[in-house]
């Protein structure tokens, strides 16, 4: 079996594994109509539209303007975009050759070719440029070669299969090198001044950005792709207040409202001019235990906490159904996901009490549960619900919250200094590959503050499996390896497994063809407005 067919099979397997994720397109409708301006209301503005981006509000806008070599479909498939076909991986797995599409031009008229791709990747790879996602996305890439005008080769430190998924990430979108230079370059930390006026090959061209207010994109009439953009303009408006954003949607001043609060959905569902879209996201919410601090050094205690909390009830009541109970450490739609315990960790208070008694805490337990407020959907309310349920199992959890900036620093201290016992956090597997969702969190080399294992979990077997999986090209074997690792993690219970968030988006009825992507981006590439 050639390497290429291996990759093709891997994509097919991804397809098989991926769970159907509904796109936001409506029921059968009349033929697409060109023209019009689509206004998307969101809670925050972007920070930069350059490779210095670091959050989904940036990625969402970039995706319309600048394109990546590959794309991750909402169903979790990897497809060629600016690349002509899936890459060829060398037999030793240490290089990846990519053929590019021909005849594509950037919005400034300069040609898209291998030199442009190399320029972009070289820029990110250069440590002096301090691109925030260099280590995460291109950490295993040592250099980029131009093979011919339309072929590039990425050389790797070691075989690293997740790279293909990483190439779908908007922070690795290809920008026009000429435009970057003409704008005056990109300076860390945010890629100024180019970051305010991106030029790519995408279906929409950048037009205007009034900071804190709106970003305006216009149709690229010369778009190369088979599906031409229909809208004349796409406008991203920053409306920070949830209530005001929903009202603007009801009043028809915006067409799309992202992050609709769950409490509003029942009311909005009654409005016939509107539609509510619920798309699950790749963001998993969990409560981590400090695995190196008693009583959480005892796996029975960690398991008891998991038994004591009724995740289903929390999803139904606190989150209004806008979440999915975790049945694995990562969520569906991610390459390498498989359900470990269908339906989630069972709710069994008696079992929890028994386990606690076995672990010597039959008389009860006092812990402090740290949680953010306003960072994740209903985070404080979820923490309060967990607290109430733990009480039934004889656990007295004291709630503690702090503002996000302080929270990030507080939970990121080394093991010998951290005061935390239990804390709520979320992780978005934005690369769409299990490696990013598992290695970064559960590998013992990632203990805070060096990495994101802020709960100090260590299992040598898990470490080994996660390392192995990075080099396995056979998708079935890779998925099996991840499954094995996730089974161990599940049994060790370093977290209180909660849920993955759904994105609740409100749309006017006339909006068609809009895609709410699991990676927390609203995409208007092929959207249009019905009469």
């Amino acid at each position: 079996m050639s390497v290429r067919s291996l990759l093709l099979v891997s994509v097919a397997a991804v397809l098989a594994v991926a769970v159907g994720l509904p796109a936001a397109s409506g029921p059968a409708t009349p033929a697409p109509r060109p023209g019009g301006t689509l206004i998307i209301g969101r809670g925050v503005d972007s920070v930069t539209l350059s490779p210095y981006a670091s959050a989904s509000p940036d990625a969402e806008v970039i995706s319309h303007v600048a394109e990546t070599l590959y794309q991750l479909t909402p169903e979790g498939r990897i497809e060629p975009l600016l690349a002509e076909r899936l890459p060829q991986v060398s037999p030793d797995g240490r290089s990846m050759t990519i053929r590019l599409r021909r005849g594509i031009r950037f919005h400034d008229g300069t040609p898209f070719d291998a030199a442009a791709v190399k320029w972009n990747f070289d820029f990110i790879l250069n440590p002096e440029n301090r691109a925030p996602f260099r280590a995460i996305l291109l950490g295993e890439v040592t250099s980029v070669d131009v093979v011919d005008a339309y072929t590039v080769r990425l050389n790797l430190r070691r075989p690293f299969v997740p790279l293909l998924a990483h190439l779908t990430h908007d922070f690795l979108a290809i920008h026009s090198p000429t435009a970057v230079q003409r704008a005056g370059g990109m300076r860390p930390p945010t890629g100024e001044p180019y970051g305010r006026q991106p030029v790519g090959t995408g279906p929409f061209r950048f037009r205007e950005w009034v900071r804190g207010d709106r970003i305006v994109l216009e149709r690229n009439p010369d778009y190369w792709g088979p599906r031409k953009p229909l809208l004349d303009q796409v406008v991203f408006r920053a409306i920070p207040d949830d209530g005001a954003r929903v009202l603007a949607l009801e009043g028809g001043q915006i067409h799309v409202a992202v992050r609709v609060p769950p409490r509003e959905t029942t009311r909005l569902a009654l409005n016939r001019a509107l539609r509510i879209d619920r798309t699950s996201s790749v963001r998993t919410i969990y409560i981590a235990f400090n695995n190196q601090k008693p009583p959480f050094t005892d796996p029975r205690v960690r398991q008891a906490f998991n038994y004591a909390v009724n995740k289903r009830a929390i999803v139904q009541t606190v989150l209004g159904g806008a979440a999915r109970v975790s049945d694995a450490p990562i969520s569906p739609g991610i390459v390498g996901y498989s359900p470990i315990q269908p339906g989630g960790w069972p709710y069994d208070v008696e079992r929890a009490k028994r386990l606690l008694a076995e672990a010597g805490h039959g008389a009860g337990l006092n812990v402090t549960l740290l949680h953010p407020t306003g960072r994740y959907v209903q985070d404080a309310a979820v923490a309060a619900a967990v607290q109430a349920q733990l009480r039934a199992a004889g656990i007295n959890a004291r709630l503690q919250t702090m503002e996000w900036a302080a929270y990030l620093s507080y939970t990121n201290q080394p093991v010998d200094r951290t005061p935390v016992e239990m804390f709520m956090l979320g992780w978005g597997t934005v690369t769409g590959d299990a490696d990013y969702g598992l290695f970064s969190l559960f590998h013992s080399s990632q203990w805070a503050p060096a990495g994101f294992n802020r709960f100090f979990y260590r299992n040598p077997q898990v470490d080994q499996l996660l390392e192995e999986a990075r080099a396995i090209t056979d998708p079935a074997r890779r998925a099996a390896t991840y499954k094995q690792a996730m089974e161990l993690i599940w049994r060790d219970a370093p977290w209180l497994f909660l849920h993955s968030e759904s994105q609740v988006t409100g749309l006017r009825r006339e909006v068609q063809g809009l895609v709410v992507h699991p990676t927390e981006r609203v995409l208007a590439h092929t959207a249009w407005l019905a009469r």
Partner: protein
Amino acid sequence: MWRYVLKRVLLALPVLLGVSVVVFVAIRLIPGDPAQIMAGQAATEEVVRQIRQSLGLDQPLPVQYLYFLRSVVRGDLGRSLFNGAPVVEELRQRFPRTVRLALASMVVASLIGIPAGILAATRHLSWLDTLVMLVALVGVSMPVFWLGLNLILVFSVRLQWLPAFGYETWRHLLLPSFTLGAASAAIVARMTRSSMLEVLGQDYIRTARAKGLAERVVVNRHALRNALIPVVTVLGLQLGTLLSGAVLTETVFAWPGIGRLLVDAVLARDYPIIQGATLLIAATFVALNLAVDLLYGLLDPRIRYE
């Protein structure tokens, strides 16, 4: 008078210097690291350290402050840690929008508050007086969030008369300025009423009435002008509050002014923006106080500036 103005301006310098020290130290004392936030929660320690270094945040505090002060003297407030834009440019964009909103709210407050106060005072202890004071009490107590969202609900969603957000035209200004001005209108009404009541009890008012002047002339020509002095003080202070306290209104109406800039900057620990914005607000307060003091002279010729 110019000597007086010069003296006041010179006195303002230590005030601003004090503000800058307090803000500079305070934002660095609260927990939360801008480098960490900027790098994102997934960043490695190495990346965070690099960013901290590139921002000069690894230097001792006094050194950082001196660098800051040197730049300020040169008219350079630095760059936003987050979007890299020059702070001066951000302020130049945002501040006029907030000024526009605050001035419009002042107009709302004066147009509603002063006539309401006069009305209440001239009909002292009548049902009208009670009603005005009751409405004023409600106005002061009403949360800005609640009022703003309800105005949007009625005028944008139901009636579709006015836009719910945006800042370009006068139509965009109506709802936010009413929301922001409502509480001030209530305060102005109460102030006008009590000041008016005091003036109406003065001897010269009795004299004016004794001359046989029409009550309208007595109120408008003789009483109002004198009654306005404390009202002007209140209005001046209110303008300062409106300029710095428009955060909630700016949030509800997605108005990209300086209040929201400041709150976002605090949450993101964007030190240069916080420093620049607070300095600007402090300077505005100082300037407004001076302007109010000078206005007294216009209203009451007995007041002289030494």
